[in-house]
């Protein structure tokens, strides 16, 4: 074994070092290069050094991505058919744009915005949200007077709602009768009572159906919005918790560095003291 300063390898030394380092090498080339390594300290040293670099590189891990975000957005693509590519692109771009302004806003603003949306939605729909021993209870209603929104039990609410609906029906019925009476007097003809009764009942059914349908739609809408708001708040909460963890980590990091430095200084001082003649 020699200690050559200069390498006398005949072939492409750099290429062979890489091939050997990454074990991406033909068997004949490997044997030949190993024979060379046995006699060349320079190549051995370089190979060891590059191996150390690889060991250090192996410790470099990218930060954990918010893969959920990636998946949520890229899944938009996959949720479209293969023929709906243009639409998918528009959807993903729109999602990206929505994400950016929302993400850039501070946390308090995001929470405030969510609450504002919730509040406005609740106001529009005359929303009544209760959380009691029966669990979360969301109700919507129309034209409820402010006085009726006082603190009453859930059963009282239901009675109030029924009373209001009955009142509304009565009002509509009387208005309808009035309009019919006006119309028949204008035509100078008597309206058969049976027909009027029949029209009232029909109108009542239609109004009730309309009210029920509208209430059902609003309930669904509000439940959906509530779900979205709760999900957004939860994700924001998780992000805040992660931030707190990160800050703690940074604090520990700084503290650790300080401890390490102090320890090194202490070692250095002890070393110097021990080296001094008695």
């Amino acid at each position, binding site marked *: 074994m020699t200690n050559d300063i200069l390498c006398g390898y005949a072939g492409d030394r750099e*290429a062979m070092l890489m091939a050997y380092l990454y074990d991406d090498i033909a068997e004949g080339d490997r044997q030949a290069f190993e024979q060379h390594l046995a006699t060349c300290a320079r190549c051995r040293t370089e190979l060891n050094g590059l191996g150390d670099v690889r060991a250090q590189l192996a410790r470099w891990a*990218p930060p954990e991505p918010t893969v959920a975000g990636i998946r949520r957005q890229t899944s938009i693509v996959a949720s479209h058919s293969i023929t709906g590519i243009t639409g998918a692109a528009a959807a993903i771009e729109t999602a990206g744009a929505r994400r950016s302004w929302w993400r850039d806003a501070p946390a308090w603003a995001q929470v405030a915005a969510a609450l504002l949306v919730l509040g406005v939605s609740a106001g529009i729909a005359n929303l009544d949200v209760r959380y009691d021993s029966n669990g979360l209870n969301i109700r919507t209603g129309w034209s409820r007077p402010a006085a009726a929104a006082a603190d009453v039990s859930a059963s009282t609410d239901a009675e109030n709602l029924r009373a209001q609906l009955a009142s509304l029906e009565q009002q509509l019925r009387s208005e309808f009768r009035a309009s019919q009476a006006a119309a028949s007097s204008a035509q100078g003809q008597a309206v058969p009572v049976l027909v009027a009764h029949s029209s009232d009942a029909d109108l009542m059914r239609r109004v009730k159906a309309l009210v029920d349908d509208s209430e059902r739609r609003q309930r669904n809408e509000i439940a959906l919005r509530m779900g979205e708001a709760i999900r957004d708040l939860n994700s924001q909460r998780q992000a805040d918790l992660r931030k707190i963890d990160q800050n703690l980590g940074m604090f520990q990091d700084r503290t650790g560095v300080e401890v390490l430095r102090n320890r090194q200084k202490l070692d250095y001082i002890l070393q110097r003291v021990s080296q001094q003649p008695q």
Partner: protein
Amino acid sequence: MTGTDEELVARSMSGDADSFNELILRWERPIYALAYRTIGREEDARDVCQETFLRAYRALPGFRGQAKFSSWLYRIALNLCRDWVRRERRTPVVQPPEDGDLMEMAAATEPSESIEDLVMRKDLTRSVERAMALLPEEQRMAIVLKEYHGLTFQEIADLAGCPLSTVKTRLYQGLTVLRRELARGAKVSMK
């Protein structure tokens, strides 16, 4: 859902959205890691990752299967990384991530590992990031593809569109710079 990439691609092309979702699940982390190590910014790496899958989806009807799906995906991602570097008109800066991967490291380490060990590992990560940021784009790309994605020299040459010998030269030069910079960083930290 199981199957090879090629089977999932075939099913995606016939309109099965779940198959493409499966491909995303399978490859999103490697593509994100490739983008992060190439351009060095978490946010941008995430965007590149998303854009990669979007472009792949758009181009799926034209995928003829001459190359592996993963190689095709890598090529899209690398082109996007190149575009990013050109658009930004600067060398990518590998930044230590804002979020504390010290915490992740702490969670992943044995309970016996001391805070000093953690700090040293953290410092090493930073040193690697700083040294990688010094490399030209093509050297960094070669190292990332070889070191972290296990591609063969030939696969890297195909992706980079250069001779195989050039790939080895780029790797050698890149690793040599890293070796020097990491040694220098270690000396500085000891002072």
